[in-house]
């Protein structure tokens, strides 16, 4: 992912956070939001710009589950698999999604639209089982409801 325009935009993002004492994570989060992943050359650029060793930038980029170093789908689906959802049928939720999307956990659909992931507690256990699609949380999932929800994104 090269091109002058991209670097200009990244400069802008870095500039926005220059007041922060230690802005690395905030910057990476914003780049992630903008391009949906952190390309290797961009990480190198950030490392040089902030004068932080590349190993450290990569260390942060690969530590957090919301940050990705490979392109992800337009919509990242995160299915909660922790106990409160597990005992309310999250295994079936995952199966339904796999069937509907034709992909396994950790994969991205061929049209680049959906990435399917499992995640830890989303904090909406009152409506378990639950999942998140990008920034939006969905609860009380059943097979029908999952199909309805997916239709909104297709």
């Amino acid at each position: 992912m090269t091109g002058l325009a991209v670097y200009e935009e990244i400069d802008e993002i870095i500039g926005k956070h220059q007041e922060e004492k230690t802005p690395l994570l905030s910057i990476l989060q914003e780049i992630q939001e903008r391009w949906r992943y952190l390309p290797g050359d961009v990480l190198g650029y950030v490392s040089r710009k902030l004068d932080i060793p590349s190993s450290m930038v990569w260390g942060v980029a690969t530590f957090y589950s919301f940050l990705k170093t490979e392109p992800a789908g337009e919509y990242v689906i995160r299915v909660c698999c922790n106990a409160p959802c597990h005992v309310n049928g999250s295994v079936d939720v995952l199966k339904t999604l796999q069937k509907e999307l034709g992909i396994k956990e950790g994969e991205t659909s061929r049209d680049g639209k959906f990435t399917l992931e499992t995640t830890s507690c989303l904090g909406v256990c009152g409506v378990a089982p639950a999942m998140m699609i990008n920034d939006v949380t969905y609860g009380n999932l059943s097979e029908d409801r999952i199909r309805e929800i997916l239709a909104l994104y297709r």
Partner: protein
Amino acid sequence: MFYRSHVLVEMTSNSLVRGAAQIKERLEREIERLGLDKEIKVLETGSLGAALPSPFVVVYPDNIVYAPVTVSDVKRIVEEHFWKGRPVGDLIFSPSERREIGVFLPYFPLTKEKRVVLRNSGQIDPTNIEEYIARDGYLALSRVLTEMTPEEVIAEVKKSGLLGRGGAGFPTGLKWEFTKNAEGVEKYIVCNADEGEPGTFKDRLILEGDPHSIIEAMAIAGYAVGAGEGYIYVRGEYPQSINHLRIAIEQAREYGLLGENILGSSFSFEVRIRKGAGAYICGEETALLESIEGKRGIPRNKPPYPAQEGLWGKPTVINNVETLANIPPIILQGADWFRSIGTPTCTGTKVFTLTGNVNNLGLIEVPMGITLRELIFEVGGGIRGGHNLKLVQTGGPSGGTMTPDLLDVPMAFDTLSRYDSALGSGALTVIDDTHCIVDVVRNFMEFFLYESCGKCTPCRVGTKRIVEILNRISEGRGEPSDLENLRYMGEHIKSTSFCGLGQAAPNPLLRSLSFFEEEFRAHLEEKRCPVDTCSMKTKTKILI
């Protein structure tokens, strides 16, 4: 302007996905169409506890709850109820449906409920500072700044007996005192809103429903310990909390309640938000500091404790959201009032989140000392589907396991630790007897495996080995030595892991091994899953 009626529309992550924004817009349009807009005001609100069927609409002063509401219901509500004065009977919420507990007074005669930290949730528009101020918001801060010395503030918090609500239960007043007495001019207040313990969502509801209470409490803490800057670290999974906090901070600044010389005093304080990026370990306080510093969220050595060397090496107070929400009421109503709630050794209230296989999912705030029996069978309405209780995991996976014979133990930090259990965050995951213990424990252990930060070997490798063995057992390939191996590894992970996460990771395993040994043995010796959850598939495969 005086309105004869206020209509509150739920604006939370749950309701927005079900059209809450459209409902609000439609309400305003219909009200205007009938010329009622000078009489009826539409407002946004946070969750009523954890909520009724979402989205809900509450009408004051009639105290009528419509839930769940769809856009097509709006016209009828406005015409019938607001115009003609006849509440729409079939849309009014009736508590017999499966629901999250609303903890809402006229509809839920839960006499045990006591709202301190949830005092404003669902009662005010969290995006409007004036509503918070109208309910004595920022009064505690102004009292502290004008009438109290920092020492007096700390003395009051110490006297209240408030224990940290994040899980560890450390006395808040002491934390503040240590930080105040630490050397240095630059100090920080950090609010830990990285609520990741599975089954916990109390902090989300406080942040969504009453964000100003946290900002006010952080400013009070800042004054008490001599800090001029505060950070709220919110998990990335809570966009709505972040949104409400942003608005609240902005408004507090506008009103001069944050910034330079607050309320004309010499005290200045700023609050900033940092967003998490999906790592459970960042709820551990030193890992959280690392993350704010833009690094991998890996725990630090303790000591030095954050009170001595915290954020950027400066003395730092780190308090949980629920802990902070207790501070303004303690200042306003006094430590003695706070001590009158709860048990003598564990004062105040606790927010419990009921999850898993109970009829009523949701949360409730009650005085410390309530029993599990009351929570599960009175508040939670018992086990779903007429099944029996198998176990309750208190405080999430890193907390403790309680069995049906322990239902009458009072819920407090000290009493539960006597039973080798833990109150933790107040999460209660109720599991019924249709679930297999091997499957449940494996789920807990998979969580720790997934969330281990990888710093120390016992936690990183130990959780992996345990999950492998549990997988084997559930496939019918368990070996006689497995039980002993699991215990051995559990004990070692517990005693040799670097941080609290690793030390707590084997808890659900070890407790279950002692409570449900027979069920494990059935898997191992008879290659049989007593509740028929495990596939035991490999056994058949071998025969083929």
